[in-house]
């Protein structure tokens, strides 16, 4: 495989006016991610994460202008389970609140838009998933086309494997290269105290060929939260805010057989619209639950070897469904906050085979 795709070409850059208001990530927290958190409810899983993120920002519950969360009732198997999680937020007296039934990265997008309108100065975004409650491979089949696809129960690993085989047949990767992606991710995750799967992990037998068990993400319970703030509020709450320079999300056609599974035009378009191509990024946190999807995203987003990919270990090291994408934004922001990155790309995905893609570009202020 080539890890160094060619220079940007093809789609012309869409000239966007810069966001009217500066918005930044000022705090990020996440749980320790585990295979099974049966000892805690969703609210109990979230509480310490929310306390942590609010503590970092120096805010109390009730001082936040807007709250938005991402989760899926299908993971818990209970309708409106997300309303129970609101107990951990301090939602009374009534707060301005919203929820997305997908990854929390999209909740962050909604909060970002809310701040851009000037309706809010601060926003709390959180997401959680307890995949241990059910068989997540089967649960995820219920998000598929209910007429032609869901009755066949194609599980999430099977669909990723179809995509991986197409990528291998296209000559873009091979099983050894995929094993390398998985190994690098888990080696990097050894420095991430929250990660679940770290260090040497066997590539293992085929889960669904060509994907080995090592190419697949762990099944994870976990939660994450971010505080966003605008302009001078952000500067007041945080020594080194991670400014969101642009953010966009796009989707593919829903028919798997209509798409070129080896490419991610929606991720590329989102990146272009977010301004990712205007200047190179030094870091990319890619939401690639399967090793093969990292290969697709690197090609689609034209990230060369100079870009540090998933220093956190990424989704291959911890995959709390509905929080994994939000964590990518948080990890990128934290890296900027530490001074390890000047300009980072954060990506989130949802649905089968990179169906929906969100890209955010974050920057620190020059020192």
């Amino acid at each position, binding site marked *: 495989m080539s890890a160094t795709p060619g220079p940007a070409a093809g789609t012309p850059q869409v000239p966007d006016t810069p966001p009217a208001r500066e918005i930044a990530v000022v705090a990020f927290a996440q749980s320790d991610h585990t295979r099974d958190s*049966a*000892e*805690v*409810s969703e*609210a*109990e899983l979230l*509480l310490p994460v929310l*306390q942590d993120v609010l503590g970092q920002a120096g805010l109390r*519950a*009730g001082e936040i202008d807007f709250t938005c969360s991402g989760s899926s009732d*299908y993971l*818990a*198997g*209970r309708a409106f389970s997300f309303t*129970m999680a*609101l*107990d*951990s*937020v*301090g*939602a*009374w*007296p009534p707060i301005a609140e919203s929820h997305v039934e997908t990854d929390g990265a999209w909740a962050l997008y909604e909060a970002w838009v809310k701040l851009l309108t000037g309706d809010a100065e601060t926003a709390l975004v959180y997401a959680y998933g307890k995949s241990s*409650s*059910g*068989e997540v*491979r*089967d*649960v995820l089949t*219920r998000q598929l086309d*209910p*007429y*032609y*696809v*869901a*009755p*066949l*129960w*194609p*599980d999430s690993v*099977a*669909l990723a*494997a*179809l*995509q*991986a*085989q*197409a990528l291998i*047949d296209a000559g873009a990767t091979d099983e050894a290269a995929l094993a390398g992606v998985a190994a690098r991710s888990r080696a990097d995750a050894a420095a991430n105290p929250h990660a679940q799967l770290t260090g040497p992990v066997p590539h293992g037998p*085929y889960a*669904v*060929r*060509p994907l080995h068990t090592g190419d697949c993400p762990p099944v994870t319970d976990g939660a994450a939260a971010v505080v966003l703030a605008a302009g001078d509020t952000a500067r007041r709450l945080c020594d080194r805010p991670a400014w969101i320079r642009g953010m966009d999300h796009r989707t593919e*056609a*829903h*028919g*798997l*057989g*209509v798409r070129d*599974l080896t490419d991610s035009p929606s991720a590329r378009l989102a990146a272009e619209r977010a301004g990712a191509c205007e200047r190179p990024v030094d870091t990319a946190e890619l939401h690639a639950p399967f090793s093969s999807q990292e290969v697709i995203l690197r090609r689609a987003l034209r990230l060369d070897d100079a870009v540090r990919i998933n220093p956190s270990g990424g989704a291959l090291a911890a995959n709390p469904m509905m929080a994994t994408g939000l964590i990518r934004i948080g990890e990128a922001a934290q890296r900027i906050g530490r001074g390890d990155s000047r300009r980072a790309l954060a990506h989130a995905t949802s649905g089968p085979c990179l169906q929906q893609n969100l890209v955010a570009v974050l920057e620190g202020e020059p020192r």
Partner: protein
Amino acid sequence: MTPTSGTPEALSAPLVVEFPFTRSLGPVQSAFLTGLRERTVLGVRTADGRVLVPPVEYDPVTAEEIRDLAEVGTTGTVTTWAWNPAPRRDQPLDTPFAWVLVRLDGADTALLHVLDAAGPDAVRAGMRVRVRWARERTGAITDIACFEPYEGGEASEPVPHTGEFADPVTGITTPARLDYTYAPGRAQSRYLAALAERRTVGERCPSCRKVYVPPRGACPTCGVATRDQVEVGPDGTVTTFCIVNIKAKNLDIEVPYVYAHIALDGADLALHARIGGIPYDQVRMGLRVRPVWRDGSRFPDHYRPTGEPDADYDSYKGLV
């Protein structure tokens, strides 16, 4: 109020979610699924001349409504595949098989299905396959039982089709079952464990001092963890109530009966339960009640009057 220590083991229980989704079909979906019942595969033609199989109601690129149907072959070519060594419960085959995207002859897009093949070495992109029809067909994607290997060249061009069949399928019912293990967490496990000993234990917010029953581990006002356990009741006060006149399915209680909010003594949140042992039309706000337990039950069957004078409205008005 006695803060108690010690956490019982977190509870868990099986939870099965099962639903027969009934969905109506659009005209293109109806023609396609009825066609499968009649061993005919239909695609839909886009404005730029491509034939989409499976067919959709709207062009995935332009979003325009598309209705021109065309019959394509029942043989095709694998575009990509994945070998599944361990079939899962509801998948189409119960022996190892390949997931495949198949471009049927005459089509420009691929259909997701499964391929019955001897093993992964017998499968490759570009291989020729044909439909194996299900013996009993109802108008569903599963009318294609699977694909099977086929030695033969590409069939002819797509043929225009009216999409009209006798007795068209207009809807599908797709049963789905998901198996979960429900774990209520620390606070609710403690509550349920105490309830099994016929004690009602709430939890106090360290910030606003309110006692929540049942506790869920967090104070919804302050957004902090509740810590101290506080035994409340057993007696309480009806804060408000309603008279139920419609018999619930699978519930062996004669109507009318009263369902009430009850503020247990010492609790800052009313819980709800049935009121018995008093004619339904004599239940009132302020009525003092106590739980009635049945042998072997983990929770009170209902609450009955204590016989005390009614509580003063001011004593519970904050909980109405």
